[in-house]
């Protein structure tokens, strides 16, 4: 997969950090403002997709990033289940909100909801990016 022109590459370099930060903001403020783990994860996946489409890489690194994305997706899923099971172990109910609730409208509030948001964002972002890689970018399948 070849990269795009110099204009696209330069603009991508400028913009990609902002997209990433915006995704992180949407995730971390998921329990305060509209958004949450799913939307933020997709935004972060979009940042990776932009980088991938603009620059393009050789077949080997495509395979490598696909493996990394799969690993991260599994980590996200395990984190989500881990939060649920820790509720079961520490307080006796699956998915119980066992952490202190904190003050409403503050960043550190709402118990396990921010943790769940982070886990879901890792899972969704890595999952969508690996689907993108598999469908649109895996050239080494076609070549043999």
């Amino acid at each position, binding site marked *: 997969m070849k990269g795009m022109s110099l204009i696209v590459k330069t603009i991508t370099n400028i913009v990609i950090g902002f997209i990433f930060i915006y995704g992180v903001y949407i995730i971390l403020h998921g*329990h305060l403002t*509209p958004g949450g783990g799913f939307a933020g994860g997709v935004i972060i996946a979009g940042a990776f*997709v932009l980088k991938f489409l603009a620059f393009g890489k050789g077949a080997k690194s495509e395979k490598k990033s696909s493996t990394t994305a799969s690993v991260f997706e599994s980590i996200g899923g395990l984190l989500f289940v881990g939060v649920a099971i820790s509720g079961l172990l520490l307080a006796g109910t699956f998915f119980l909100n066992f952490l202190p609730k904190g003050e409403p409208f503050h960043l550190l509030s709402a118990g396990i909801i921010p943790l769940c948001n982070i886990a879901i964002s890792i899972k969704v972002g890595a999952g969508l990016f690996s689907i993108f890689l598999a469908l649109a970018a895996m050239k080494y399948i076609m070549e*043999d």
Partner: protein
Amino acid sequence: MIELYLFLVFMLIAAIIATEIKDLLAAVISLGAVGFSVAIMFILVQAPDLAIVQIVIEVLTIVLFIAVILRTTHVDETIRKKLSGTQIFSIVMFAIFAILFLIVMFRSLQEMPDFGNPIMRVASEYIKLGLPKTGGANLVADVILDFRALDTLGEATVLFTSAIGVVALMRKSGRKKKK
């Protein structure tokens, strides 16, 4: 209210264009018009959470479609060919079943609550208990990650399964080599 129906008509037209046009890039753009109309409708009925997710997913889907189309072909060869007998038969059968379904649905649709006036038997409890029970200011996050977290776990499993399916279909190892 009237603007919702306008968007509905626009979506119907865009969907028909997306299935009938010969150039696949134009079809993808009409599909994007449908998706973004859905996002605008979510905003109009005051559901910003859903609107954000819809916009972001729509952008990613269009980019994915275009990336695939640029690698394969622009033109859909199957459109506007002469229909064979079996295709005409299946279209007629589909139309008959759709009409039957609508006739059967008619009575139950009359029993439904009016648009925009839900019964709120379950939701009123969520709205009352959301902030005191969970401490989260965003009620949607309270519902999907606290009251109904098990549903979210199932949803995450669905996404995981689809990713596994796609990667397993497209992988290189385990595939027979063409000679």
